[in-house]
């Protein structure tokens, strides 16, 4: 393999490793923009992964698997919404409960599928562009979910920054009282944002169990849901920066695999700590600037809203 081919392979793998993070972080970003902190990303991802795998394995249809993952993520998000939005429960506690519940339930549901195998989503080369040296295999010979993640990201960016509904959603997260006074249904808007977050987390899970490593293992998301939460902070709630952050993390995890593969005598367990340590480091670098966080974080993030009158 030539050096160029190797580089292309590493970069392409980086993109794939970053894609579940792009999807999950994008969903959480929209949720947080509406003023809701959902710490249940890990649980929703695992439910998406297991539901997607079971549906795909049972029907042999990957599209059905993806649909099931979306629905599973949304069902979990609905549970969160009922507790945190309708019943006004503490969002931190509810999110933690969602993560614990999702971990348990996914392990329970997937018990019969641990050894099952699946074809998995295959790459879809874009004719013409895929033959460009370096860029072709990296950008245009990926599976459809990688393309979808980038398209969704741009769409969310446009939606939040340019559309009227995006403005209303941001208003619900910045000043729910003002939005309510203007006649916008804050709770309903937050429900929509939470459900979108659930769908995207479910999709991120499906990417893991149907494309990245087409199989189901207990706890297969391995903390990616939590890394996605950190990514939202890293991106200072700006969608386009999510992409950058997610691919940096993808790069770190691929680097770690490549160091192992290249036969360096470094213990694999210690190398595997890299993505988690990197998460802490970037969080520190971003959070230390208190003013930047305060300027960019949705003002009503994590605060329950109850319409008066």
């Amino acid at each position, binding site marked *: 393999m030539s050096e160029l081919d190797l580089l292309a392979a590493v970069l392409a793998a980086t993109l794939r490793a970053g894609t579940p993070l792009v999807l999950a972080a994008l969903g959480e970003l929209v949720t947080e923009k509406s003023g809701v902190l959902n*710490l249940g990303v890990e649980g929703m991802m695992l439910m998406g992964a297991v539901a997607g795998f079971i549906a795909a394995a049972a029907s042999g249809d990957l599209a059905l698997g993806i649909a099931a993952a979306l629905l599973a993520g949304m069902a979990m998000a609905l*549970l969160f919404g*009922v*507790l945190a939005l*309708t*019943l*006004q*429960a*503490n969002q*931190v*506690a*509810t999110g*933690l*409960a*969602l993560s*614990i*519940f*999702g*971990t*348990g*339930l996914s*392990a*329970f549901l997937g*018990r019969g599928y641990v050894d099952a195998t699946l074809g998995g989503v295959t790459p879809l080369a874009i004719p013409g562009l895929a033959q460009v040296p370096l860029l072709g295999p990296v950008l245009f010979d990926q599976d459809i979910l990688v393309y979808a993640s980038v398209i969704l990201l741009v769409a969310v960016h446009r939606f939040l920054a340019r559309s009227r509904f995006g403005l209303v959603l941001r208003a619900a997260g910045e000043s729910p009282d003002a939005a309510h006074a203007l006649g916008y249904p804050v709770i309903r808007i937050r429900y929509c944002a939470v459900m979108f977050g659930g769908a995207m987390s479910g999709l991120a899970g499906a990417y893991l169990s149907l494309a990245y490593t087409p199989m189901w293992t*207990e706890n297969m998301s*391995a*903390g990616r849901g*939590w*890394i996605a*939460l*950190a990514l939202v*902070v890293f991106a200072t709630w700006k969608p386009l920066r999510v992409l950058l952050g997610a691919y940096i993390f993808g790069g770190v995890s691929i680097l770690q695999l490549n160091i192992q593969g290249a036969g360096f005598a470094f*213990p694999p*367990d*210690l190398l*595997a*700590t890299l993505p*988690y*340590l990197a*998460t*802490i480091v970037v*969080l*520190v670098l971003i*959070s*230390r600037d*208190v003013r930047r*966080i305060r300027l960019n974080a949705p003002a009503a993030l994590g605060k329950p809203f*109850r319409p008066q*009158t």
Partner: protein
Amino acid sequence: MMLPRLEQRAEAFWVARYLSPFLAAALALLCGGLLFASLGYDPLVAFHAFFIKPVSSLYGLGEVALKASPLLLCALGLAVGFRCKVWNIGAEGQFTTGAIAGGGLALAFPHGNGLWLLPAMILAGALGGMAWAAIPAFLRTRFNTSEILSSLMLSYVALLVLSYLVHGPWRDPAGFNFPQSRQFEDAALFPILFAGTRVNLSCALPFAALPAVWMLLERSFIGFQIKVAGLAPAAAAYAGFKETHLVWLSLLLGGAFAGIAGVDEVAGPIGQLLPNISPGYGFAAIIVAFLGRLHPLGILFASLLMALIYLGGESVQVSLGLPLAVAGVFQGMLLFFLLGCDVFVRYRLRFGPGAAAASSP
């Protein structure tokens, strides 16, 4: 339409505050029964296997105590932080580093047979847990970094470090290449208290911690500061209570307790270091803390219930072939129902139209 509405109460409804954990447990049981039924098991048979069989022997009761004690220790430490909204969710990692530190000491003194070894291991465990918890505390107080994410990330790191140690430098040379350390010597193991059970001296530790935490939370000035900081952060700041002090205190205390729990586990029922030393005690302790209303006595009862759920999960795995993950499902449901039931502490359910306009001032 006669949609039920929630109406804010003038003051918190104390009956609901104490009733809702019981209601939540009952609802979780009901849903568990439905789950068993949907899997084709007779709910009564399954319930018997889950909740009655494990505790129908002296040995079983001992197992409850053995499982409840790490949960109780971890949850007591977490409750202090949760009261002032310091969300340490990395007890699992602090449990692990405590076990590494205490277990490391046991391995370092293979012929240590003095009475000093066990107390030194407990101390090492506490320090190990505190060191791990100090990182999120430092990052939060110095760099404004969310302790939720940093403490959780560090849990993954701690588990990987333990895995590295038992696969590498600490692996038992005579262990047929299994990833496990040497067995601890007798001097490094907690002595069994009751013959016929596995209950050991470490089960007494939470009972020393419980009154201490109660004193701290309910009868000390620090406890008052914690309460104010949790209920009204602005008032706490105005009164001059230092938030950074409370963050450090909660995390260090939580870390120390979780670390000691880790030592209890490896120097108790396990007796060596393994890659998996905890069936999620650190995470389950979060549920225990909430279920116990962040009150030491409540946490005692909640830890017993949670221990029973763990045991029940193992029991139905053996007798009915159900997966161990059933316990995780139960734990999650319990917390959901608790959070849902808590709504009645602050709100009342009203049917019919127009009441809001009539009753709100």
